[in-house]
């Protein structure tokens, strides 16, 4: 069987509490080639975040397998999962998850520190890339939502990951900021040849994606290869 860069095979995930059981994903499969931009869509609670968490090895599937670059990330130990994230994954969260007591520059440095190297010049370059050179010494509380998300994007790109996972990165932003963040994300991915898995409600991102996966109630109801993808690939 031909295996993509990211291969999600019949993955199921159920969350159990004392009183209830919620099926978050049910037999979801997805193949993503290296450099592809895949858009995950669906209503709230459809399983988008769960799928991203599983691909990032932040959670484990109950059933099925997830391979990233040939590694079954669903079976990694805690420390191996951390190493995998530090080396191969950049994550952008809806709620930014910046460390509030660190400056923007220091937040961008964190993934590098995790890998044992601190390159302040590269961190400044990344902040420059997201247009925040002059805000590098500001704490997250001194930045707007859009600026915080741009810092989060710079942090996600810190170790030049092969896979970028973005979980509704524009969900908390106004239209203008959202547009800028999306532009940044897509251009960063295109320029670096990274793979992007983006969970979003925003319809306009569909035009930029190579592939769209729609989830409803944890079930993949459609996987579409977008018509624009050929144009986008040719522009790379």
């Amino acid at each position, binding site marked *: 069987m031909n295996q993509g860069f990211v291969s999600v095979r019949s993955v199921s995930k159920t969350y159990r509490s004392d009183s209830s059981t919620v099926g978050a994903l049910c037999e979801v499969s997805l193949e993503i080639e290296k450099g592809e931009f895949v858009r995950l869509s669906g209503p709230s609670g459809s399983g988008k975040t769960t799928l991203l968490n599983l691909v990032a090895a932040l*959670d484990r599937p109950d059933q099925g397998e997830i391979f990233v670059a040939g590694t079954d990330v669903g079976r990694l130990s805690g420390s191996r999962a951390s190493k995998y994230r530090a080396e191969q994954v950049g994550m952008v969260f809806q709620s930014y998850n910046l*460390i509030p*007591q*660190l400056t923007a520059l*220091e937040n961008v440095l964190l993934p590098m520190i995790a890998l044992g190297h601190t390159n302040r010049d590269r961190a400044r370059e990344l902040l420059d890339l997201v247009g925040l050179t002059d805000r590098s010494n500001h704490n997250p509380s001194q930045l707007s939502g859009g600026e915080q998300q741009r810092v989060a994007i710079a*942090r996600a790109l810190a170790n030049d990951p092969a896979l970028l996972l973005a979980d509704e990165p524009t969900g908390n932003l106004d239209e203008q900021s959202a547009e800028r963040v999306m532009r940044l994300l897509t251009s960063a991915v295109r320029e670096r040849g990274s793979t992007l898995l983006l969970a979003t409600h925003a319809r306009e991102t569909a035009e930029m994606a190579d592939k769209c996966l729609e989830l409803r109630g944890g079930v993949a109801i459609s996987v579409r290869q977008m018509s624009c993808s050929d144009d986008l690939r040719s522009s790379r």
Partner: protein
Amino acid sequence: MIWMKLTFGGFGRRFVEAIAAGIVLAVTAATVAASLMVVEGARNTLTRAVRQDRPDLVEVKSRFNRALFETPRSGNLPPLTIPVYEPLIDPAELEAAAGDNQVVKRQSLFRNVVTGDSFLNIYIFGIDSDVERDLSGFSLARGRFLEKEDRAATVLDQASARALGVDVGGSFPVRKADGTDQQLTVIGILDKLELRGAPPRTAEAPSLRPASTVVSSGAFVNIQTSEDIFGRDSLTDALVVAKYASETPALVAKLQEAFRLEPGIFVTERYTQYQRKVRDFDLTLALFSAVSIATALLAGSFAANLLHDIYFERRRQYATLIAVGFPPGMGIVPAIIFGLVLGLGAVVTGGLAARALVPRTFAMPSLMADLGPTEPTIDWLVASSLGAIAIAAISVSLGPTIVRLLREPVAANLSEGSP
């Protein structure tokens, strides 16, 4: 710098709670330290009591535990050699009663020694030199102490030596029971003497401590020499050392039974008095341990609860570190360091405060008066207890966070609470 900020920065309103937790822990540590210092002081007092009281020792004394031989103070009459005081203790009977417990024999004599034209009263003690040295305190100024094979040799105190005009190497005569003189050669001079179970001082004689009511001077000879002087092996007094202190009451009963027909022989022990001290120690230990435990539990729980709130709020931050690629162990390092610095800093402060503020001597409540005043002491046990309190408070507060971060999926912690 980043690690400093990750560990100690960004507490916001929780900073007040961290300070409060630190203060509560410091006060707890001070209270517990003060209580434990009293307990340790009481323990030291008890150890001293064991050393001083020797509850394992039983004294067997004849009514007048000194065989006195009168010599006329003037004229040319021959000295009288009549043992004035009876009865005396039969060593064979004593050893039989003592069983396999150690018997320390003594003969205590009182002699008039001729020095030039006058007489001098001198106490002469026949002792088992090897054993007696461990029981009583002899501090040599010059020369050496008695050894088992020494005969007609004596060690005497400075006051007696001065009165007799002798020094190491010199000698003086002592009248024996048969009317002849025994020359005793001085081999050592004592500058301090603490004779265990010393007889009362009833006659004027040179003394190291003139105001003392017990004999604090004398010439010490091996018991074989004193038997030669006395003319018999009967003992004036003896010590019986119980194998274990707890066996003392049984030993006392056996000795009393053995000498029940000898109204002039008394068996005395310090075990009962020691037991009262032990009881006082137990009361002290129970009281102050209860105070320590109650304080540690109540205040420690409160501090742990405050710390738990802080850690709960930081949980998402630690999870973020793990999410961006830090190993789980490293992700929680800031939490552990923060807790250790706060907790250990607080208990060190509390311990130092207790050391500074606790009185140098602590008088026991009246019910515990037998132990007497104790000196509160800070030692490794107190220090370890304080360390244990800090570590317990940190463990209790940090435990749920560590368990969640290490056992639960990182995703669950990332979606919890506010950043």
